[in-house]
């Protein structure tokens, strides 16, 4: 890796309290360094904006669920192709791009690290295989544990406490799969869906057959993640997604986890007032207030963007509701012992009351939140919209005039239910954009080498033309540097790079196998000995982030 000096750019590196200062960024050996020699290659960044590479804390880019969504959206990719050229592979785009296209398009957008937010551990080999075919970006995946029958047994035995066996089991699962963090999706509720199309009303509902409650699952697994010191806290998709009145559930989930670190996924979908079955309204301000008082909690927004989307979730009950609403395509897939999966193509329309309200609530979360380090940017790709919509979303945050024009096109009855017409004139600064798109996600993921440009950081850097049209600016970076090498220049990919798999590791007592093996034998149709992924070809090249480091 050659030495490089990025000179004269306006640097936005909020993790190091650098807010638009003119200074050089030096790179050598794939890292940011204090200085490079006179022979170093130079990029003249005068008049440009320099930021760390983007970090997406919550997206769906790989695994059987995403692949099924690709199958389901074949008609959207015919006119959206990537050609095979040089070392670059061909692919197709649409809402759920093929793997190579996913890597290329994230890179072209200035993103250098992406987290697949929901992987069934039983499918780890599949997820890892896809991630190997997703180039240009470093990537990690979160392991679904919120409806795992084996963990339910351990939680029942410990009566909801964090037992050593449970803690060891969580660490074992991460080691067995190569995962980075722990994801809870509708804890307890997916098992109820698979049992009898059921759902969770309250966090204290019993999961039939297991005598555990969603609250116990949250406390026990969230606590185990915290005690293990995993780099990323438990990542929660709360119960009752999309249901009117679900803000009560979300607040109760926050209270249950308060005092522990936790990250709430796509908070927009969990901010609703009203009565179940009735009209939605916004309760985003209440949730933001609660978050504001609890710095140990963070969230990503899950912004809805008007247009086509592909809902892909482990929360299969939600998909059944959307199936009935849309009458269109629907995939359901039940994975033994662990989770479910639902996929429905969906269209968010500006004139539709519910969709406009969802859109407005997302903007409320961004604009009313006091601390951008706590509320991060996502569209829950592809659930709220494609990651390719990020530049437009950034413009909505940075450009009040554009936002007001967009607001005027949306369902006004819905907009009046939000704070968007209350003189909300906030415009994000470039530094705030740098926080919500790279610094905060990297910090929350515990990726100390990412999301900043301090000495020793990974040399993942994005350089933008400082354009007045912020959508255009963030859609087409002038340069993207990944691991110290030029990856993108003026909208063209310059090299093909595999990217790293990011995994985390926590110590555990190997004797936990004696506890797990009989529970596996009863439940799984896969042998316990064959469950862990051991093939180095699937797990490398990797960077392991040790718990507690």
């Amino acid at each position: 890796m050659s030495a490089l000096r990025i000179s004269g750019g306006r640097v936005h590196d909020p993790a190091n309290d650098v807010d638009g200062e003119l200074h050089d960024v030096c790179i050598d050996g794939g890292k940011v360094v204090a200085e490079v020699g006179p022979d170093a290659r130079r990029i003249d960044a005068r008049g440009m904006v320099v930021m760390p590479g983007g970090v997406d804390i919550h997206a769906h880019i790989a695994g059987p669920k995403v692949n099924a969504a690709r199958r389901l959206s074949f008609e959207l990719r015919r006119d959206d192709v990537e050609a095979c050229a040089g070392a670059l592979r061909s692919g197709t785009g649409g809402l759920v791009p093929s793997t190579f296209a996913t890597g290329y398009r994230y890179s072209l957008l200035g993103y250098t690290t992406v987290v697949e937010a929901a992987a069934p551990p039983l499918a780890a080999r599949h997820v890892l295989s896809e991630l190997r075919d997703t180039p240009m970006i470093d990537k990690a995946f979160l392991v679904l544990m919120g409806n795992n029958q084996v963990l339910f047994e351990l939680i029942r035995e410990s009566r909801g406490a964090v037992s050593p066996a449970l803690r060891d089991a969580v660490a074992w699962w991460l080691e067995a799969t190569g995962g980075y963090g722990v994801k809870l999706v509708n804890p307890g509720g997916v098992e109820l869906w698979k049992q009898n199309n059921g759902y969770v009303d309250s966090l204290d509902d019993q999961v039939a057959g297991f005598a555990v409650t969603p609250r116990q699952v949250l406390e026990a697994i969230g606590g185990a993640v915290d005690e293990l010191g995993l780099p990323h806290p438990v990542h929660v998709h709360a119960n009752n997604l999309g249901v009117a009145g679900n803000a009560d559930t979300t607040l109760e989930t926050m209270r249950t986890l308060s005092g522990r670190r936790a990250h709430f996924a796509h908070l927009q979908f969990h901010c609703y007032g009203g009565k179940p079955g009735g009209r939605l309204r916004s309760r985003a301000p209440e949730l933001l207030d609660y978050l504001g008082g609890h710095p140990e909690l963070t969230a990503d927004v899950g912004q809805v963007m008007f247009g086509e989307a592909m809902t892909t979730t482990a929360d299969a009950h939600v998909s059944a509701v959307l199936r009935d609403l849309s009458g269109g395509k629907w995939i359901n897939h039940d994975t033994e012992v662990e989770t479910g999966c639902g996929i429905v193509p969906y269209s968010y329309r500006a004139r539709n009351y519910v969709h406009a309200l969802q859109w407005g609530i997302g903007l409320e979360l961004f604009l009313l939140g006091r601390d951008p380090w706590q509320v991060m940017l996502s569209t829950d790709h592809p659930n709220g919209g494609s990651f390719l919509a990020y530049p437009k979303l950034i413009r909505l945050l940075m450009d009040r005039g554009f936002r007001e024009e967009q607001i005027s096109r949306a369902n006004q009855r819905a907009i009046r239910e939000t704070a968007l017409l209350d003189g909300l004139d906030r415009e994000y600064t470039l530094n705030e954009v740098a926080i919500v798109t790279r610094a905060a996600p990297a910090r929350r993921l515990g990726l100390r080498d990412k999301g900043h440009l301090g000495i020793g950081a990974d040399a993942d850097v994005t350089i933008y033309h400082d354009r007045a049209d912020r959508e255009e600016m963030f859609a087409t970076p002038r340069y993207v540097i990944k691991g110290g090498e030029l990856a993108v220049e003026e909208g063209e990919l310059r090299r093909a790079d595999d990217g790293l798999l990011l995994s985390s590791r926590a110590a555990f007592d190997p004797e936990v196998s004696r506890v797990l093996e009989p529970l596996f034998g009863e439940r799984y149709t896969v042998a316990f000995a064959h469950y862990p992924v051991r093939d180095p070809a699937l797990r490398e090249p990797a960077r392991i982030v040790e718990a507690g480091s």
Partner: protein
Amino acid sequence: MPDPGPVTCAGCALLCDDVTIEPSGDGVRLEPPCPLGAQWFSERARRPASAPAATIRGQAAGVEAALNRAAELLRGARRPLIYGFDGATVEDARAAVALADRLGALVVPGGLAGAWPGAPALPLRGASSATLGEIRDRSQVVVIWREDPLTSHPRLLERLGFVDGSADGSPRRAWRGTRTLVVLDDRDTATAARADLRLRWARERDLEALTCLRAMQRGVAARSSDLGDALGGLLERLGEVPHAAFVYGPALSSGAGGQRRALALHELVRALCGDRHVVTLALPSAAGATGAEDVLTWQTGYCGSVDLAGGHPELVTATRPLMADEGVDVSLCIEGGLSPAPAGVAEIALGSLPARGDAEVSIHTAAAGVEATGTAHRLDGVPLALQAPLARDAPSAAALLARLLAEIER
């Protein structure tokens, strides 16, 4: 033979991973017993050390020479075709699609012989499905639609909890009592003999039957159909339970009208899901089929046959076998049954079993699951590791394909 412990058997798409193997005569015995698995292991374990590593026009040749010849053919091909994948690993399929991308080849995940599978139904409306364990633990009624898994996937019923002719009585199973195995088939098969309820009608009437079932499920009487009683009995069984599964395969979804029949089944299941949990399980026969389709989907975005001739993926929607229609001049068969090719098509075969003698180039590959490790996707999508209990020096198909690609790019 060293004791490798339990291994994964790639003899069919069930990929049972609890299998122990031991020598038996000139073959291999499996525990739990499975005739298909034993035959599959035996055929691959039996390969004599003196067998040529490669052939060119039927004559023994070195691997290097054969690779060079294959590269020469593919470089000069106007319309290359890559197909097969019956015994391919995920790694093989990844390498094959990479090669196809560079060549601008047509990729067909499956064999070319037999009935043309047609375009898959799933992308049009979706499906409800589940892994084996979900069906075993929850489905009280399992309907086998015109397949004979006791022959094609010998341990399927056992793995779905139907043990020794009766339901597995494990107290943990949600159904905890009697289950019903329904078999629809007008043939007297081994599976049909195990049925608790048999349904019989000709295959030509499947679409009619599915349409009637859907109508009856909606409360509309199937006025003109003489199948009414049989269908009513099936609906009654399904109506009594909260969980059910339909198991189907090529007999439903392949050949003329296959897509419509499969769509009708998925529509019925979707309707039944309104007030209960109903899933389907597809039965591909080959161990490599699901993995190859998954790889093709994630690398190109499309499932089914994909054409890369334009420099990017395009879905092939032809309704007839491709080789004759598309002007194919060079075909590369990977770990599959080599299909008879029209005159003028130069054939290259990479496989763990001897290829037909008239292939232009044939290179022996290590059999995944016997001589080489790898990853395969079970018929329900669960990815599994393949072990190498009889590891030998032969290269894997993935390794050969990577060398071919390097040679072509040189």
